[in-house]
């Protein structure tokens, strides 16, 4: 997935690129993020173009006529008037400045199906079938007496593989072990709630006593990442 950013200043460009790469690392989406070269046309196709309406350059003409195949257009600015004016190009989203990474995450989650085929995956045998599950889609997993249950956005998948074996195959830093029998995807962790972590889908997963400190600091670190300013 190609991200192109055009913010008000080159410092903001660099900050936005760094924030997007951090998002991609957690969502496990292969991403190429770069600032738009001044005067160049935005790349066509299925990428994402983030454009700060407070930058001196006007929106490129081709965005007004790009039809269905133009990049996913995300605009940002501080005022309501610019948001109303942006309906002339019908962006996929409009972010109010100051923009945090969490705002962009919420927006990109809505469109993630567009990049379904590009997402990094893990292969798991489920009921005699080899399933290739996007890591993004593996929200959390739990041990059970037959192996493990993998919870995705649309279903729970039973595998005979143990949670321990599975977690050894998963890329480092993506999942958080919050109890001996539970593993959660860092990307989908929303907050600490009571004795557990609350996930994006509203599910609470318990945290083991011995893991409380490490989970707590991981969740705090995630909060800082999502609070990172983009523009």
């Amino acid at each position: 997935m190609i991200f192109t950013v055009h913010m008000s200043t080159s410092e903001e460009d660099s900050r936005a690129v760094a924030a997007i790469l951090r998002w991609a690392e957690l969502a496990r989406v292969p991403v190429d993020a770069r600032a738009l070269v001044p005067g160049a046309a935005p790349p066509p196709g299925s990428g994402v173009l983030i454009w700060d309406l407070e930058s001196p350059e006007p929106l490129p003409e081709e965005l007004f006529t790009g039809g269905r195949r133009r990049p996913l257009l995300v605009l940002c600015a501080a005022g309501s008037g610019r948001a109303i004016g942006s309906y002339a190009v019908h962006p996929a989203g409009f972010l109010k400045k100051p923009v945090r990474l969490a705002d962009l995450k919420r927006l990109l989650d809505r469109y993630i199906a567009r990049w379904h085929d590009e997402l990094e995956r893990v292969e798991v045998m489920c009921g005699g079938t080899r399933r290739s599950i996007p890591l993004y889609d593996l929200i959390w997993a739990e041990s059970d007496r037959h192996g493990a249950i993998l919870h995705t956005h649309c279903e729970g998948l039973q595998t005979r593989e143990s949670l321990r074996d599975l977690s050894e195959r998963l890329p480092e830093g993506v999942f958080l072990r919050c109890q001996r029998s539970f593993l959660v995807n860092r990307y989908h962790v929303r907050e600490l709630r009571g004795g557990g972590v609350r996930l994006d889908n509203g599910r609470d997963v318990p945290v083991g006593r011995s893991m409380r400190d490490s989970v707590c600091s991981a969740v705090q670190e995630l909060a800082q990442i999502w609070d990172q300013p983009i523009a």
Partner: protein
Amino acid sequence: MDLNIAICDDLKEDRVELARLIRDYCQPRGIDARMRLYSSGGELLDCLDGTEKPDILFLDIYMPGLSGVDAARRLRELDKRCAIIFFTTSTDHGLDSFEVEASDYLVKPVTAEDLARAMDWYLQNMPEELRSLRVCSDGTWTELPITSIMYIETLDHQSYIHLKDRTVVTRRSLNDLTSDLDSQDFLRCHKSYLCNMNYVKAIENSDFRLTNGELVPIRAGSPGKVRDDFINWTYKKAWSRP
């Protein structure tokens, strides 16, 4: 084409004037616009529970009781598909309009040009369930709702479009129809078959079993690829669904 359109504004003259502009836009384009008018956000939400949901909702913002933005938030909990177009005197709610995924924001007084711009965009980007495929069959042009097409097969230079309740025969090629449909829901599962995956109940050996019991063959050369495409589609569909 039929469109259910709701207009919600506490000012009667604004409701009536907008309804007139919509009629003037729809009539020459052959669109049958069925309009319902509401005078408050509360009335709108009460009525939406019992009636057919609108395809497009024109919504004022400043109204007694529930504001248009709050009504839109409540509506979104019930219906993600409806296109919400704000029409208001205020320019203060542009950011709110994106929060509720509005399709447009028109500032009163709304002109015919403003309305045409908003409607043109809607018609070009309308939800798949409202799109149709235009084909010529037995010398007559007909509009087939895309969602009612179960599968298409080709035989002897003719395409047989199997709908839920009938079959339409046309001389257009399968490639041509595939490109015209431009839909992720259709899978070329065989050289001679294009299948609407919304109607697939199961994969049985080398066939798709459809919800009406019919079988659509899967190409022998790459059954695994077709199966993977189908599974990936179910995931994409689940993710895209509100």
